[in-house]
């Protein structure tokens, strides 16, 4: 029981050190990443957001076309 507790304490210590070490390393990696990609064009990213918008855009385009056709026909 006492032994288990001290093991648990050790794991807690190792665990927090490792998690912090890992995520700190990752901060470093992100700094390198940013520096590495700095030259590249900063595109608006997130293709998925763009694609999600598509149907809506298609819809509005279709509506616009229909209305345009209607306006032209009425002349």
């Amino acid at each position, binding site marked *: *029981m006492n032994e288990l507790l001290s093991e648990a304490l050790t794991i*807690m210590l190792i665990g927090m050190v490792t*998690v912090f070490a890992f995520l700190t390393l990752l*901060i470093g990696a*992100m700094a390198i*990443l940013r520096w590495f990609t700095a030259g590249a*064009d900063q595109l608006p990213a997130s293709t998925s957001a763009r694609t999600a918008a598509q149907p809506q855009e298609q819809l509005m385009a279709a509506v616009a076309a229909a209305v345009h056709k209607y306006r032209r026909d009425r002349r």
Partner: protein
Amino acid sequence: MERWMMLWNSTALSAFTWGQAGMMLVGALLLYLAISKKFEPLLLLPIGFGAILANIPLAGLNEPGGLLYYIYLVGIETGIFPLLIFMGVGALTDFGPLLANPRTLLLGAAAQFGIFATLLGAIALNSLPGFNFTLADASAIAIIGGADGPTAIFLASRLAPELLGAIAVAAYSYMALVPIIQPPIMKLLTTKEERAVKMEQLRPVGRREKILFPLAVLFLTLLVLPTATPLIGMFCLGNLMREAGVVDRLSKTAQNELINIVTIFLGLAVGAKLSAAEFLSVQTLGILALGAVAFSVGTASGVLMAKVMARFSSKPINPLIGAAGVSAVPMAARVVNKVGLEANPNNFLLMHAMGPNVAGVLGSAVAAGLLLALVG
């Protein structure tokens, strides 16, 4: 006459046990929470239904040859279902806010203290009668503090399958309870002025950065902690498919149909682990109590870490965003936003909280890998 007897013997009325009836009530309770209270319904509805199905006497759904038995065998014993869900979550995750403010990773790290404190707590609980958690059990329970369903199910399936049902139920229930658990702790540890602090707008993040980030995460993980690579690897695969921009049809399938199909099966299989023998015990009460501790400690340590960082930072940091470090994506970030708005009606913290929020996902996956390495 004989056939009438066969019929009677084949009704459940002749075969019910109190334990099974009790577990059906538990299943019904989960359905109620899922449907009426909207507690993580995507998981708790199938889990609750699975719990009912698994405990029907004579139906054999959870015995060799039964549907739930097969689903558990194929999807959870192998670890495949939580990993596929994690891939889908990766495809749904936008790391932009984290990349714009990398330091918030430390908040995601600090909040994992909830996990390790709970590990200690679970072992300490052994001093009470009725509790006899091994280190593996305690680790599986502790991961509830990761506030991340698939991670909890994956680790529990490796370290303590007999506790999996209770652990999954606790994890999803507390994730649903985040809006109730977190605000008091957040307010206790911060002043109104701190909560009103506005943060600078986030820089836009380039497409290349977003593509390379999951690869960098995978690379670090495989170097430092290979046991975390199943979880983190599938998460990064999902995220890479999302950001690469060349496999949108795969990314969309991972985010929608695939994750939906797996969610139905995962829920049923978790429900199948809710058997009376394993769930209706004092251990489950211990797990529920420890889960509450885990969430609270995680929230507190995230907020405290944010206060420390605020002191040493040149740019303003609102300490509330530390609470999002427990993950529970995106609920915890929304809670941060709400509490921030209460203190200052013009203070929108949502995007700032998304950084620590997704950092918490990585943090708890790392913690899970570590526990696998040390006690697995």
